[in-house]
Structure formats: structure tokens, C-alpha cells
């Protein structure tokens, strides 16, 4: 029987153990990286589909992990699988990536008028989704998944500089979008 890897194992150690077929190690990688995968998908596909796709990304990654030559690149490699899975999602459902609202939510909150009530989270997420891809992804990892800048860099394989740019500029643009939404709401 393969022993469970210690909690303190590095990502590279876990990857190497997973490559030897250790499912506990792969489970530990899931614990560390599920938030990142979730964030990447949330910026690209309807929220109702994200949880299932997170599992799907890991199930796709599992048999392929032996092909990963450099264990230090696991995060970037997994992020690429997640982005590709999002593309496949729209290919399968014949929906355009820009129309994230087209797919109904799993448990829509009905209003008295029969419509679907939007929460503040929905509004902010919709605003973030208008940002360029790189800003959108990094901001979701920071604001939704609660990862710090250094952690985002570590998990995704981006440099600290890139993450700083994405967060700073992304936040500036998000502010403009949200101010625009608030102004148009006041006019109405």
C-alpha cells in the first residue's frame, strides 16, 4: 500500500508521487489547486456549470500527469487544461463564450415578477467578465478565491510582475465598469 504523502510535502513532491500512481497525493493536489481551477472556469463558463467542470478538469489531468516532465510546472499545466476545458464546454453546448447568461443557473432565485433575482455577486461577476482575459482571471483568483498575489503567481506559473499588472490594471478597469453601471442606474 502506498503511504499518504505528508501534509508538508511540496507541490513537486506531490506531483512525483501522483505520477507513481499515488491517489492520496493527487487528492492533496486537488485540495491545493481546486480553487485556482474554479477561478479560471468561473471567468469563462456559467457559474452553474463550474463545479462539475472542476471535477472534470482533475479527472482529465489524472491520467495525463505522467506526461508532465517538470513537476514544478504543474500549476501552469493544470491551468491550461482548465482553459481548454472551458473552450470545449462552449463547443459542446454550441453557445457563444460571450453569452454566459444563456445557460440557466442551477437554482435560480425567482422574483415575484417571475424573473431571476440577481445578487450583488452576479453583478460584480458580470462586470469582471467584461475585463480582458488575463485581468479577469487574476482578479477572480484574488477577489473570489481569496488567493494572494504571490499565491496566484505560485499556482498559475505567472511572474509576480505579471500578477501585479493584472491585479492593478484589472482593478482600475473594474472600477470604471462598476462606476458606469452605478451612474446609468442613477439616471434611470
Amino acid at each position, binding site marked *: *500500500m502506498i503511504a499518504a504523502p505528508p501534509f508538508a510535502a511540496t507541490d513537486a513532491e506531490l506531483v512525483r508521487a501522483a505520477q507513481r500512481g499515488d491517489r492520496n497525493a493527487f487528492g492533496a493536489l486537488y485540495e491545493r489547486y481546486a480553487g485556482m481551477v474554479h477561478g479560471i472556469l468561473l471567468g469563462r463558463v456559467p457559474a452553474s456549470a463550474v463545479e462539475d467542470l472542476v471535477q472534470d478538469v482533475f479527472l482529465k489531468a489524472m491520467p495525463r500527469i505522467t506526461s508532465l516532465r517538470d513537476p514544478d510546472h504543474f500549476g501552469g499545466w493544470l491551468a491550461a487544461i482548465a482553459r481548454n476545458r472551458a473552450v470545449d464546454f462552449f463547443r459542446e453546448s454550441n453557445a457563444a463564450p460571450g453569452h454566459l447568461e444563456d445557460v440557466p443557473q442551477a437554482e435560480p432565485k425567482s422574483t415575484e415578477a417571475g424573473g431571476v433575482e440577481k445578487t450583488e*455577486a452576479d453583478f460584480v*461577476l458580470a462586470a469582471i467578465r467584461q475585463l480582458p482575459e488575463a485581468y479577469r482571471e487574476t482578479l477572480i483568483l484574488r477577489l473570489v478565491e481569496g488567493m*494572494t498575489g504571490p499565491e496566484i503567481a505560485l499556482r498559475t506559473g505567472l511572474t509576480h*510582475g505579471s500578477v*501585479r499588472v493584472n491585479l492593478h490594471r484589472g*482593478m482600475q478597469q473594474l472600477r470604471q465598469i462598476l462606476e458606469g453601471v452605478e451612474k446609468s442606474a442613477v439616471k434611470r
Partner: protein
Amino acid sequence: MNQRKLQGEDLPDNERIDSYLWDGTGEPNAEVQRLEKALLELRHRGAAPAFPLAVSLSEEKPGLGFLSLIWPRRFVALAAVSMIAIIGIAFALKKESLTSSRPGWEVALIDGTPVIGRHSMQGSGAKGKLEVGQVLVTNENSRANITVAEIGEIQVDPGSRVRLIQTSRDRKHIFLEEGTIHAAIWAPPGEFVVDTPSAVAVDLGCMYTLHVAPDGTGLLLTTLGWVGFHSNGRDSFIPAGAVCPTHHKVGPGTPYFSDASEAFRNALSQLDFGSLTDEARAGALQTILSQARKEDALSLWHLLSRTEGSERAQVYARFAEFVPPPQGVTRDGILQLDQRQLDLWWNALDLGDISIWRFWEQTGQPSKSQAIREQMRQKKEELLKQSR
């Protein structure tokens, strides 16, 4: 703008990122805090799924198998291109393929509203397609029937989650995350594989019921033929009428016939999954040996490789009383767990030819034997007769 373009870039000297936005330190930024609070409900909270045991590298890089041994590489490539063209034309001519290009199996509603991916099945006679990667979910009121390519049927009971991992000519692979399925399969042994959180069930030509509890433990009951149950270096073979439990951290336990005495079954369970003192362990083994009937040689054979030293010698002696060692099997060989001798002795039980299992174990492929394929064809007839 993409990731690649931004990689390596950094902010100019006259722009500084807010330290709270960067790493949560420094003066809390009210705007960022408000956004964090609003978006908190969208954060990932899903628990880690149980990952399949039987996923292997060979699934990702399908080879051309034995063809590459007998044909020069360029002919194999040419044949592969021709096959792809033929398959492409066949698919283009087939109307059904227009609905979806992904491989999958037909699902028919039996009761309730099973869900495939994000789509509910509703109404009498409703049908759907379970595609590779998708999950079929039945709630407490739902049941569904899956047609497994052309090699069998699976009934999915209420409260189950079944994911289709792979369907190809030589390999049909599902992952039963939770719940109960009843499988009737007439494929060559080794072609149909069911992963569970605690063991992999490999069809060796049979009908069986497989249950997985929410904690990942499982139970397999074979009604026709036999099934191999495999995990953590432990193999269990379950012939018709036998049952095998499986445990998340141990793998498959020792199979037993369902009509074995309660004392025998309890003692096996203690030996397999209990944390026993030496004394308690010796007591459990004595119960097993004293309660064993001739049919229970099935369990004793498995115990040979799950015991050590004097325990194994006791099991050997009792097993030999029921099934005399065939030619080529010696006491020393068995006590040293000589694989060839263990296999010979298993075959003497006449519960299934273990060479089929060894072939699957070594290649991950179903048996290529024409004789076995013919047996499976006959089994299909038998199963169809039973279902009428």
C-alpha cells in the same frame, strides 16, 4: 490580451499596487473588502471527489497494440489513416452522429428524473446520451438504464452517480462514485471496467451488482460468471454466488459465498478490516478454518496470500483438505507464494481461468482469445434468454 503577452511585464515605477490588493497586508482597502465580501458566495467549496483507480497512461496514448508487432510501422500508419477515413465516412452517413460528436452511451429513463450533466430526463420513455466525462445522477426516486455500447446493460439504482470515463473498441470504463448498479455484460473479459473509490471491478464475463456507500466502501455480488476486484496490490476474484466487500483504505476484502455461516463471514471481516491484537487475529483465523465448508475454499485460497508464517501454513493445510494440490503445486511453493503455483491451484477450483486475469493485469487489454470471445457470444445468448 493574453497570458503570454503579459508574462514578464511589471508595473512602471510611478504605479504602485495597493498592498492589500496584492497580498492582504497593510491598510485594509475598503473597496477591495466590499468586493471580496460580495463575491464570497461564489468561492470554491466543493469537496475533493473520489478519483478513479484504474486510469492509466495507456488510456491517454492508445497504441496500435499487436498490429505494430506484425506490421511495419508505415503500414500501420497507412492502415490507421485508412481506418480513420472509413470511420469518418461511416459516421458522416450515420444520422445519429449529427446530434453529438462525442462518444457516449444511450440512457433510458426507468423512474423519476435522472440527470445527465446539466440536463434532466423527464417523461415516460425519455432517452438521453451519457457522453465521456459526463455524470449520470439519480436521486432517491430515479432509476435509469444504460446501454453499454453493444456489450451489455447497466441498471442504475436510486441515489447513484455514474461517470463515463472511456468508451472505445477494447475498453469501456465507468466510475461509480456512489450508489448501486446492476451490470449484465457479454464483452470479452477485461473490456468492461468499473472504478469505485476503493477498488476496480473488472468484468470477466458476468452479471453482478455493485454498491458504493457515501464513505467509499463497497460491496460486489456476482450472479453469473466472475468478476475481478483490484486495488492497492490486492486482487479478489468473485464467482457467481459470492460477495466481496471493499474498504477505502484497504482495497478489496476476502470474497465469500453468500450462504457461508455468519461466524465465518464476521471472522473474515475482522481479519480483512479490523485492527486486531495477535490473540484476536488468531481467534478469527481459527473460526474461519473451523467453519469453512468445501465451497469456502474460495475464501481460503485468497487467505493464502493475506496471511503470513504459521497462519499461512494453517490455511494451506485446511485448503488442501478441500482441494488437493494439483500436479506442480507444492507446500513450499505455496508458502513462498509462488504465483504460478497459486494460479494452478486457483484453476483447480474450477471457478474461472485465471490466465484471463493475468492477461488483463499485464496488458490492461481484454482477452484476444477466439475461444473466449465465442464463450462470451454464448453468454450473451444465455443472458438474453434469461431477460425474456
